């Protein structure tokens, strides 16, 4: 596809996030083909598409949980480029990926809280051991974050004693504790009881208001439409359409988008 035009009519500002010519394959299966898009600071973007379309892999490539075959990922001034599959993922590249990761917080579908640590320790561990923060300062900050996600009374609990929604909010607090410039959410609500989904989405709405740049892979079409600045629709490892949130629901350009959204509307 051609270079996407975002927010028609507005001249493209220096991109806060840009993904260029990203390719990724597992063994012989190409799962991401020539992915290109840019984002401004403070945008909330939803990535939608059928299961297996590559949307989670794209998200995981953006903080190098998956090593991309080739392409460039730039986030908040840190750029990592891999020329092709033969480029070894050496220490230089690994160091660049690590630097990039320091700008990015990630929240997983399966939560992945550390079950052997209290909620407070879950949040303070990385700031202390990765960023070298003093424990007292880290705990103070963690308590502020817990308050913000409404879990101030749960600091000393273990993850096993939290509901799914509470645990996912704790996971968001844990990611925020590393002061990321961008938050990535990989289907953050699909493992949750429907009644608890809004607690999580509300936090994302609040973060959006505060100017956090966020990308969410989601099946929550209502949230995607109402909260996103724009939506990326993917199919078969390709971006089919990038569009304004109302536009894509009201007037999907591509027949594939129309077909996919037809299941929900």
């Amino acid at each position, binding site marked *: 596809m051609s270079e996407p035009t975002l927010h028609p009519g507005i001249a493209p500002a220096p991109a806060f996030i840009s993904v260029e010519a990203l390719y990724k394959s597992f063994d012989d299966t190409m799962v991401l083909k020539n992915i290109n898009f840019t984002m401004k600071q403070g945008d909330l973007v939803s990535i939608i598409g059928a*299961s297996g379309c590559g949307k989670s892999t794209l998200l995981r490539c953006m*903080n190098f*949980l998956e090593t991309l075959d080739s392409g460039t990922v730039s986030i908040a001034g840190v750029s990592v480029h891999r020329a092709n599959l033969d480029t070894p993922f050496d220490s230089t590249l690994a160091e660049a990926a*690590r630097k990039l*990761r*320091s700008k*990015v*917080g*990630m929240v*997983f*579908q*399966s*939560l*992945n*809280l*550390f*079950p*052997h640590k209290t909620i407070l320790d879950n949040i303070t*561990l*990385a700031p202390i*051991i*990765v960023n070298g923060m003093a424990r007292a300062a880290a705990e103070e900050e963690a308590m502020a974050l817990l308050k913000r996600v409404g879990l101030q009374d749960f600091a000393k609990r*273990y*993850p*096993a004693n939290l509901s*799914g929604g509470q*645990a996912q909010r704790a996971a968001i607090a*844990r*990611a925020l504790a*590393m002061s990321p410039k961008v938050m990535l959410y990989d289907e953050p609500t*699909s*493992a949750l009881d*429907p009644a608890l*989904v809004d607690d999580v989405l509300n936090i994302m709405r609040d973060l959006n208001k505060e100017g956090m740049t966020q990308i969410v892979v989601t*099946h*929550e*079409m*209502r*949230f995607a439409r109402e909260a996103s600045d724009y939506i990326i629709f993917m199919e078969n490892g390709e971006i089919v359409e990038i569009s304004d949130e109302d536009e894509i629901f009201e007037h999907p350009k591509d027949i594939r988008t129309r077909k996919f959204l037809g*299941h*929900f509307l």
Partner: protein
Amino acid sequence: MPFCRYLLAAKWSIAIMLAILLSFGTNQAYANSTASLRWGADANSGAPYVFADPADLSHRIGFEEDIVNAIAQDMHLTPIFVQNNWDSLIPGLQRGLYDVAINGLEITPEHQAVVDFSIPYYTTFEQLVVQRQNARITSLHDLAGLRVGTLKASLAQRILQNYGKADIKTYDVAINAYTDLENGRLDAVLMDAPIAIYYAAPRHDLKFVSGQIGVIQYGIAVAKGNPKLVSQLNAAIEDIIRSGQLHSILQRWNLWNDMTAAQTGDHTTSATPPTSYTAFIQATGTAANHNSKLARYIGFLPLLGRGALMTLEISVLGMAIAVSLGLVLALCRGYMPFPLKTLAGCYVECIRGTPLLIQILFIFYALPDIGVKLDPFLAGMLALGLNYAAYEAENYRAGLQAIPKGQMEAATALNMTKIQSLRYIIVPQAVRIVIPTITNDFISLLKDSSLVSVITMVELTQVYMQLSTTYYDYLVPGIMVACTYLLMGFPFILLARWTERHLAVELDHPMARKRIAPGPGPH
């Protein structure tokens, strides 16, 4: 933090190992003092050679003990006893564990090929023993087609092999052969006369037949290349023959015979009564009443206690090595690149694929050839630790694999390094999973530690061997030793149950259990 505690345990075990290594330098038995005569023997080889005094088990007696004392006194040396398995007496001598070996070692060409001998200190013969009512067997020539018991690798075995027609059954422990003879599992037993005098003669159902068979000469074994020590020993033996000391020792033990008289040229008759023999027969006699038997069993307790302490010490330290090294191996195997990964894999498979007994013997007897000379305790502890490390590595591997992949990803997403992720996230969870298994393995190790008795360690099983061979009593000491093992293992069984219950609850992760519903739509 459990992992810190874990590291602490690892640090402790290293500190303890170092302490043992250092103390090993000052270990008396290994100090090469010119004023001492370190003599090797097996205190479990039974009466009348060297054995635990039935009247006081902490006390070692035997006609060879008396001879060593007399010789050492003559040489102005302090005798220092070094326990070693009878089978390993000659390797131990070559390895320098002691200066001389005195324990019914026959002067034969085979032995002389590997060690030097003093002049004999005793000459005796093989004695044929049969059931009292057996009238058919009167000599060696009546044994055709019959089952004949003897001691492994003895002159008696060779005599029987030369005879060629008997069905030879070899034993490690003399008593077992006589018991089998009594029970009809054997038709005859051929063994050195001193053994027959002590273990067959007191049995009413057995009798001596035939005359003196063969000639056995016991000599003091010395490592090759020490003619000076051999001639000093010869001089000392001649001294105690001349002074009549040897005669009276052998008389006291009821062992003096015409062959020894001929060998020493001492044809006098001694008035010394066989006091040591009588004391042995009285102490081990089956006629003892219940009260004195009870007193005897109570007398076993301190010996059992010491054996149990040794077993526990070597097991705990061995396990400390196993859990530390096992973790390193599992991490190398699971997370490290090529050379380390492969090496760790090879280690685990090699250790698991070979018997622990071989490993123990190898570490103790083979490593000195390449300059690594270890104290028996250290060798036993290392062998157990290195062996169990392979099994613990597999336990950890299972534990590590049981940790969901998402845990590592979450740690990576928080920008932890691989080492940090392992140390703070993966390993602590894996350790909790494997603690019950490790505790169970400790109970196995406690039992396997009995194998270190082959390298001179007097632990619980060795105590059982001592007690049973001394008293002819396998039943009660056996039950007592079994109970001691159970008592030692019991707290760990409880610990395993407890950890299984409590850690399982803590790790029961409701989110991990919750299955992810595929593709829920908007509401």
